[in-house]
């Protein structure tokens, strides 16, 4: 696992580094630290990354512009900040977690659990997903998404009238999205509220019909999930 810490206070970066090393042990492949954003941008462009720890109050720059930029990228972002009141907004923009300062190992463990699917309060507060539209990054409201389709390393977010390309993988999105989004198939995530009916065909073949008439395939595993949620 590749992790980057962006933190201008050396002592805090050191503390975070030590705790991450202890918690992840051998799972950690590379842990890097940047003090300033310019360095961080360079790093992100050059090296693969799975998780970013970001101090939101970076020397006078606007945190939320950055947040939109980072959350549009394939890796997950975790905010580490002294400003607790910014947490809600951070979650809206699709960060994996918000760690208030001062933090401890227990709190950090919770964040990592979330990353490894053990979380119960997943996707709470998420309102937008950063997507690319004509080369620009925009925030797509979650409420407009009908379903999500895998496209190699990327995903396509379908709304009623169009679709947007997202840099995050199906797996990454599945972690971020709230419970109403169900993985019905290796390549499909669907909003439960958009489903009109579940259709069963001979030979254990399944598909769903969305309210707008679109049909999507359902895997065996996906059907079980759906079944458990529709009782």
């Amino acid at each position, binding site marked *: 696992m590749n992790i980057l810490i962006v933190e201008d206070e*050396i002592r805090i970066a050191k503390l975070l580094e030590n705790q991450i090393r202890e918690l992840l042990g051998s799972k950690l492949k590379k842990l890097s630290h940047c003090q300033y954003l310019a360095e961080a941008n360079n790093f992100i462009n050059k090296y693969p990354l799975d998780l970013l720890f970001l101090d939101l109050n970076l020397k*006078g720059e606007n945190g939320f512009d950055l947040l939109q930029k980072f959350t549009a990228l394939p890796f997950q972002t975790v905010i580490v900040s002294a400003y607790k009141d910014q947490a809600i907004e951070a979650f809206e923009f699709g960060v994996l977690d918000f760690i208030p300062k001062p933090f*401890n190992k227990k709190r950090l463990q919770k964040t990592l659990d979330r990353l490894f699917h053990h979380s119960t309060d997943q996707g709470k507060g998420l309102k937008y997903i950063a997507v690319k539209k004509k080369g620009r990054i925009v925030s797509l409201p979650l409420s407009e998404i009908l379903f999500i389709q895998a496209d190699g390393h990327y995903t396509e977010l379908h709304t009623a009238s169009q679709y947007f390309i997202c840099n995050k993988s199906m797996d990454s999105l599945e972690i971020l999205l709230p419970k109403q989004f169900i993985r019905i198939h290796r390549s499909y995530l669907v909003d439960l509220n958009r489903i009109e009916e579940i259709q069963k065909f001979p030979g254990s073949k399944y598909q769903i019909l969305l309210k707008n008439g679109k049909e999507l395939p359902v895997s065996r595993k996906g059907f079980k999930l759906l079944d458990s949620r529709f009782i």
Partner: protein
Amino acid sequence: MNGKDILFVFLKSLFVFAPLYLCFQLGSQYYGDRFSGPYPTDPIMVRVGDDPSWKMINIDESGWDTQFPNPPSNYWWRVRIQIDSNLAERTPLGLAIRSYLASYEAYWDGHHIGSNGKVGYDRTSEKPGGIFKVFLLPEMLSQPGTHLLAVRASQHYSTGQIRKPFLLLSSYDRQSQWLIIFAAFMHILAGVFLVIGLYYGLIFFKSIKEWQFLIFALLSSLLFLWILAEYVRFYYAYPYSWHFVRIFTISWLSFSVSLLISAFFIFRYQPQLKWLLIFQLVFQVGFYYWKSDFDELNYYYINIALLISFLTLFRAVWHKEKYSEEGLLSIIPLFAASFFFYPIYYDQVLFIGFTIFIFINLYALSRYLGDQRVHLELVRSRANLLKVELLKKNIHPHFLMNTLTSLISWVEESPKTAVSFIEALAEEFESLSEISEKQVIEMSQEVDLCKSHLKVMQFRHEIPYQLHTEGILDEEKIPPAIFLTLLENGLTHNKIDTHNPTFYLNRKEINNTIQYYFHAPGLSLKNDHTSTPGTGLQYVKARLSSMYGDKWKLESGPDKEGWFTKITIENS
């Protein structure tokens, strides 16, 4: 000032003007025949000398003249007066002789009807008469037709001026009442002026030391005195020898009032025009030596005051000074008095003008006082806000939480360093709590504060920050935490990668100003320097305003090696 306001002020003026005008009109009605003109008579015939037979109706009047003699000669004068049937019905009739500076005996159709003072041949034998006297005419001698008034007079107390008698004939009751009633009304007004004068005097001496209040207080008080001096002659028949003392007093009152009117507007709206007052003074003194007639003199005084007030107010209105339109409006009635009512009715209309003048300016001043109160509230609430801002520096989450997180890291790595860190933090908190309630601190306190903050930051960033000061005065009074704020800004916004980052604080005195130059090292991470100032800089500016008013300037921007802030304070 919009149309509505003008209407409002106009209505207010009417409110004042109307009752006065009504008194004026009713008074004239009540008085019956004439209010202020003399009773129409044949020409007055005069003869120097003293002969008791000159009181008789039919004597040879050849050798009598219309010229009054110069004192100290004793003389007689005779005049024929018509009583029409209309007047004859209003018996008993009263004959008033006013503004006549003499001691005299009056004879009506040859009968002695009374004396005013005692006629004499020199100062010792003469007893000066009062400034007015009302004689009761016998009813049998009040028939319609021509009557003769003969007067035996001496003027040994006169100072040289000849004053012809002013005769009024009407019913005795009204004759004796009307002027007292009129004077009573004028004294109500005088009382109002006195109260206004006292009130604004108190405002000046007890709370707001602004010249306009003192001038307005003096102006109102002098108008009060002027009314007293002007109308005393309606109810108190002082000896005629005092007459010029009174006239002289009035003249000096009008001299002062004229200067104060201009001074009021100049100090209120255009203080840079103070020199106009010298100009006015020179003119007034010039008039004093040029004109001998006191009525005319007063007229000139008032007019030069109006001219200068008008210029001042015109300029003030042009420059959109607050409430200057009201000022301009307030002198219009005085202009009207000069243009349309001189010399007849001038005195009366002038006082109506003064009343409107005082009331409109009273309104404008009270608005101004209201504004001041609002401004004061604003200043007070801003001071409170600043106090809160300063207190917040102690407990700001960004500072506190980051510091605590760093502290955890030190505790884990080196408990000994952690202890030093805590000590440094305690030192900073102590310095902050010492000044947090203050509006003004000493420079040395501020420098201590900056140094203790740097020490804390040194533990957090592991960078040996330095503060270098030059030319500062330890006891100099400055607003609290302004350099601390600049220091914090430097630490937050600059990318510091030198080995020995040093902050500079430099004080210089240049051209009667004090200049503080503060420099924070490192590359600024703020790209947009024109953007609105951050809360830090806003705090600094608010502090400077609350201590120095508008006598300060702040420049800041990036330079090669960091970020500079230059604060210039005008020496007062």
